């Protein structure tokens, strides 16, 4: 069953400050991912992989076409959904791990992760968060600190823990291993495989060929707009 699917999805950016320049990025994209599979978005730099991933999350507005997400067993079109519906889809169905952690001042790493847990009491969420951080090699002494001063790799692992703790049925990953060493990369590979084995649909951008080959069941090629047209 398709977890997320597009039909003739197009997206262009109109830059008013640059004299109304139009930058077409996605042209009638047909994409789908099923529950239990991991689809890697692949293609040359600048082809629109990140634009497609952000569009799938509803972060970029759909220009034209449909973006269907299986939410509580029903297909919801995020192209026409209200902001409140998109908030509900993101809460219950659609998770996203950005490339960089957006730190919240003063909030401890453990709480940043714990507050993304779903349908569990606060204490249990904190235990889950601690276990996830531990698994991702974030030392317990760091759990109570705000991650603003952490290294890039540590921040990325906190971001991953935040993305995985919710157990969303669909998970979008933007370069989840970009700042990680081999050991932590292998842990993330294992987490992605466990998630797909549980039935999670994963769509990701993985520049690291080792990661891509280890996790992807299928590759979706994204070509620059001119070549695709």
């Amino acid at each position: 069953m398709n977890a997320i699917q597009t039909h003739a999805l197009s997206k262009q950016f109109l830059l008013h400050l640059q004299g109304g320049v139009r930058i077409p990025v996605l042209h009638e994209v047909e994409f789908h991912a099923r529950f239990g599979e991991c689809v890697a978005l692949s293609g040359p730099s600048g082809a629109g992989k990140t634009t497609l991933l952000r569009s799938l999350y509803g972060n970029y507005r759909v220009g034209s076409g449909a973006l269907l997400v299986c939410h509580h067993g029903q297909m919801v079109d995020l192209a026409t959904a209200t902001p409140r519906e998109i908030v509900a889809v993101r809460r219950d169905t659609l998770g996203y791990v950005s490339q960089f952690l957006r730190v919240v001042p003063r909030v401890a790493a453990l709480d940043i992760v714990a507050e993304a847990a779903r349908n569990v009491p606060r204490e249990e969420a904190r235990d889950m968060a601690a276990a996830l951080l531990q698994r991702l090699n974030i030392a317990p002494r760091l759990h109570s600190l705000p991650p603003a001063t952490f290294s890039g790799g540590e921040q990325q692992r906190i971001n991953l823990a935040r993305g995985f703790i919710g157990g969303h049925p669909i998970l979008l990953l933007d370069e989840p291993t970009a700042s990680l060493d081999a050991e932590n990369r292998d842990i993330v590979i294992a987490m992605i495989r466990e998630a797909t084995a549980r039935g999670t649909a994963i769509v990701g951008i993985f520049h690291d060929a080792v990661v891509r080959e280890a996790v992807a069941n299928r590759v979706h090629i994204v070509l620059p707009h001119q070549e695709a047209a």
Partner: protein
Amino acid sequence: MTDDRMLSASGLNLRFGTVPALVDVAAELWPGEVLAIVGESGSGKTTLLNVLSGHMAPQSGQVLYRAPDGTETDVHAMSAPMLRALHRSDWGFVHQNPRDALRMGVSAGGNVGERLMAQGSRHYGDIREAAIAWLAEVEIDADRVDDLPRTFSGGMLQRLQIARTLVTHPRLVFMDEPTGGLDVSVQARLLDLIRGLVARLGIAVVLVTHDLAVARLLAHRVMVMQRGEVVETGLTDQVLDDPQHPYTQLLVASVLAA
């Protein structure tokens, strides 16, 4: 979707002389939702807040408030005592300048307790206990409960105002630049506090801010205003990451990255 909107405003117009402050503005809010109104000074965002909260009457248009029992009332058709009662019970208002809301000659605990007394609480011990609990909630030490607000720093005053506002458990709070004029570190603490309290208590908030980072941190949805008009509205991250209107693109492009 069932219509459980808490606040719905439509066709709001207001001019100050020749200056348009609100031009055919519509807004809606659902329970537990945080809506940010952003724009530069003079864009009409504070005027909109004052009209939505009943403090200022529009020249045309209406603002409907749906009470928990489902009855809907036009905020601007209410009698003054009814509106005051609403502001004392279901609603709260956090001003940019805490001195506009606090009584500077009354102790911190008194400032918080006063709202409870206005609601009918009479038991002194209970009121004092609630006041101390709320001071702790906003990270003010219990041993400051009898101090006058004028001995407090700007950040503490703002936290005291928030305690005073939330002690009566409002379901809708209006906030006008709640972190304006504070040092960045004080601002961060306050934002974190507001964010935590709003999420935990499930309060609906209409927040006016010129700071897009504040909107991103706190709000589910944003409305962008320019010269009294709402030029763009939508999901916060959509509006900030993929702005459509020239003015929104300008606002987003003008933010200095630290």
